[in-house]
C-alpha cells in the first residue's frame, strides 16, 4: 500500500507545483503590459496626477514579487482585490456567479456522464456495424460544431419556434428547483451535446482497446457468457480509462461554459470574464482565469489520482 500512497502523494505534489506556476504566469502576464496597469487603464488622455494616484491606490510602487505574494495570499483566502472599473470587491462580483456556473456544469455533467458512458459501451460492442458508423459521423459533427452554433440551433427550435423552454436563462433568487432546472435546460443541453460526443468517442476507444487484449479473448474462448466477460473481466480494468474520460471532459466543460453562458446570457463567471476582458478590468480577469485554471488542473489531477486508485495492478501489489 505504501507504494500507492507514494504515487498519489507525488501526483498531488506535482499538481500543486503546476498550480503555483500557473498563478505566477497569470500574475506576471499583466506585468508585460506596455507601460503599467495604471497607464493602460486610464489611456492616453490621463493626466500625470491621476496616473500617480491610481498607481498609489494599486500599490504599484512596490516591487512586483511582493505584490505577487500579497495577491496570492489574498487569492488563497478568497480576496482578489478591487475591480478597476466599478470599484466593487472582486470576491463579491464572483461569489454568486461562481455558484451559478458550478450549478450549470453540474447539471450538464449529471445528464451527460451516464448517457455517454452507456452509449460509448454500446457502440464499442456494436463496432463496425452501421450503427457504429452513424454514431461516428454524428459525434464527429457534434464535436466539430462551435458551442454557439449548437446553442442557437436549440434556441431556434426549442425556444422560438415551439417555445418549450425559455431562450434566456435569467435566474431569480426565489425560484424553485424545478423552475431553475427548466430555465437552465437549454444551456445545459448544449453542453451535454458537446461533452457527450467527446465522452462517447473516448469511452468507445478505451473499451475497444481493452476488448482486444489477450485475457479477454481467453475468457471468451473458455466459454464465459458475454455479459460476464464484460462485467467480470473487462470492467475492473475499464474503470481507470472511464474515470479519465469523465474527468477530462468535465475539464473540457469549463472552456465550453464560457461561450454557452454568453449565448444564453447566463449570469455566470464566464460571462463576467468576457465582460472584464472587453473592459480591461485586470483584477477580475486574473481572478476568473485563476479560478478556471485551478478547476481545470484539479480535475486533471483527479483524473490521474482516480486512475491510479482504480488500477487493480497497483491496488494488489505482488
Amino acid at each position, binding site marked *: 500500500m505504501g507504494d500507492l500512497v507514494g504515487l498519489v502523494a507525488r501526483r498531488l505534489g506535482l499538481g500543486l507545483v*503546476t498550480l503555483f*506556476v*500557473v498563478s505566477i*504566469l*497569470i500574475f506576471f*502576464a*499583466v506585468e*508585460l*503590459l506596455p507601460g503599467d496597469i495604471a497607464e493602460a487603464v486610464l489611456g492616453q488622455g490621463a493626466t500625470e496626477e491621476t496616473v500617480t494616484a491610481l498607481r498609489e491606490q494599486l500599490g504599484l510602487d512596490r516591487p512586483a514579487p511582493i505584490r505577487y505574494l500579497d495577491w496570492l495570499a489574498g487569492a488563497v483566502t478568497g480576496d482578489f482585490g478591487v475591480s478597476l472599473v466599478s470599484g466593487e470587491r472582486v470576491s463579491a462580483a464572483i461569489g454568486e456567479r461562481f455558484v451559478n456556473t458550478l450549478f450549470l456544469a453540474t447539471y450538464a455533467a449529471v445528464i451527460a456522464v451516464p448517457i455517454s458512458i452507456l452509449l460509448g459501451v454500446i457502440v464499442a460492442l456494436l*463496432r*463496425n*456495424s*452501421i*450503427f457504429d458508423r*452513424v454514431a461516428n*459521423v454524428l459525434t*464527429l*459533427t457534434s*464535436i*466539430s*460544431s*462551435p*458551442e*454557439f*452554433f449548437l446553442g*442557437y*440551433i436549440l*434556441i*431556434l427550435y426549442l425556444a*422560438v*419556434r415551439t417555445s418549450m423552454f425559455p*431562450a434566456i436563462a435569467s435566474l431569480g433568487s426565489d425560484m424553485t428547483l424545478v423552475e431553475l432546472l427548466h430555465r437552465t435546460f437549454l444551456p445545459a443541453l448544449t453542453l451535454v451535446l458537446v461533452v457527450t460526443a467527446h465522452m462517447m468517442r473516448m469511452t468507445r476507444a478505451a473499451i*475497444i482497446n481493452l476488448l*482486444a487484449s489477450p485475457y479477454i479473448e481467453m475468457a471468451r474462448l473458455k466459454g464465459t457468457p458475454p455479459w460476464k466477460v464484460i462485467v467480470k473481466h473487462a470492467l475492473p480494468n475499464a474503470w481507470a480509462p472511464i474515470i479519465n474520460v469523465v474527468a477530462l471532459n468535465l*475539464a473540457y466543460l*469549463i*472552456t465550453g461554459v*464560457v*461561450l454557452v453562458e*454568453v449565448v444564453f446570457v447566463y449570469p455566470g463567471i464566464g460571462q463576467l*470574464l*468576457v465582460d*472584464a*476582458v*472587453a473592459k*480591461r478590468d*485586470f483584477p477580475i*480577469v*486574473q481572478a*476568473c*482565469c485563476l479560478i*478556471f*485554471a485551478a478547476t*481545470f*488542473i484539479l480535475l*486533471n489531477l483527479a483524473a490521474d489520482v482516480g486512475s491510479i486508485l482504480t488500477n487493480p495492478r497497483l491496488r494488489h501489489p505482488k
Partner: protein
Amino acid sequence: MNMFVIGYYAALIAASCLAAYFHKRQLFMLLFSLTLVSFVLGIIGGVPALRAVTIFAGLLALAAGTSFAFKEFLVQISKPDLAKELRTAPLTAAFGMFVIFTYAIAGIFAPWIAPYGESEVIASAFAPADENMLLGADQLGRDMFSRIIFGARNTVGLALVATILAFLMGAFAGLLSAVKGGWFDQFMGRVADVIMSVPSLIFALLMLSIFGTNLIVIVIVVAVIYSPRVFRLTRAVAGNIVVMDYIEAAKLRGEGDWYLIRKEILPNSTAPLVAEFGLEFCFVFLLIAGLSFLGLGIQPPTADWGSMVRENATLISFGDITPLIPAAAIALLTVAVNFVVDWMLFRSSGLKEQ
C-alpha cells in the same frame, strides 16, 4: 393519411425488402429501423416530421452522390499511386475533400464571386432576401452572402496562418528536443506542460485582455497556445526515430543537428505530422471562431463568421435562420477536415480495429 405518407412508407418498406433480398444485412437493418422510428415520429410530429426526414435523407443522398463523383474525378486526374490510395477512401473523406476544395475556391476568388464588397452598405438593416441579395442584409444593411464569401477568406485564412505558425514552432522545438535531449528537452517539456495546464480559451482571453485584439496578437497567442500539442507529438515521433541505428551512423559521420532533422528524421515522420496538422487546424479554427464570437477576434468591418453570428443573433428570436449560416459554415469546414484526418490517421497507422 395523404399520398405523401403512403408513398413514404411504401418506399421505405420496398427498399428494406430489396435490401433483404440482396442480402445487404446492414442496409436492411438501417432502413427497417428507420421505418420503425418513422412510426413513432409520425405519431408525435405528424406529416411535417416525416417531410423533414425525407428532406434530410435527400440531402444525405445528394452529399453522398457529390462526394462519390468528386472522388472519381480525383482518381481520374491524379497519378496512378495516388489514385490507388484515393480509390480506398471512404465517402466521408471524399465529402471532406470536396468541402475543403469548395472553401478554398470561395476564399481565393472571393472578390470575383461575391456580388458586393464586404463592407458595402446596399440596403436597410435586416432587409429580407430579394433578387439582389441571396440571403438578405445584415444589421448594417450589408449583403449577407457577400460577407459569408469574404469570411471564407478572412476567418479561414487567419486560422491557417495561426496553425502554420503553431506547427512550425511546435515541430521545430520537438525535433530539436529529440535531437539535443538533456536539459533542453526537459525544459521544453515543462514549458509545454504549463501551457497545456491552462484551458486554451481562458489563456487566450487573458492574453488578449493584456495585448489588445489586433490580428498579429491573435495569431501569436493562438499559435503559442496550440504549439505544445505539436511539440509533444513531434517529440514522441522523433524520439522513436532518434534511437535508430542509421541516426547513430549519421552522427558518427559527423553530421550536424540540422542535417539530422532535415534529412533523416523529417522524411520518416511526415504521415502523423500531416494528420496532426489537420486536427490542429480544427482546434485553432474553433478557438478563433469562439474568440470572434465573443467580439475579441477579427474586428469590424472585416467580414468574419464568428462575429457575424454575434451581430445578427437578434434575428434568431424572430425565428430566422440566417445568422446560423456563418456558424454552419464553421461547423461544416471543421467536420470536413475531421473526416479527411480520420481517413489519413486510419491509413497512416494501419490501424484496423478487427
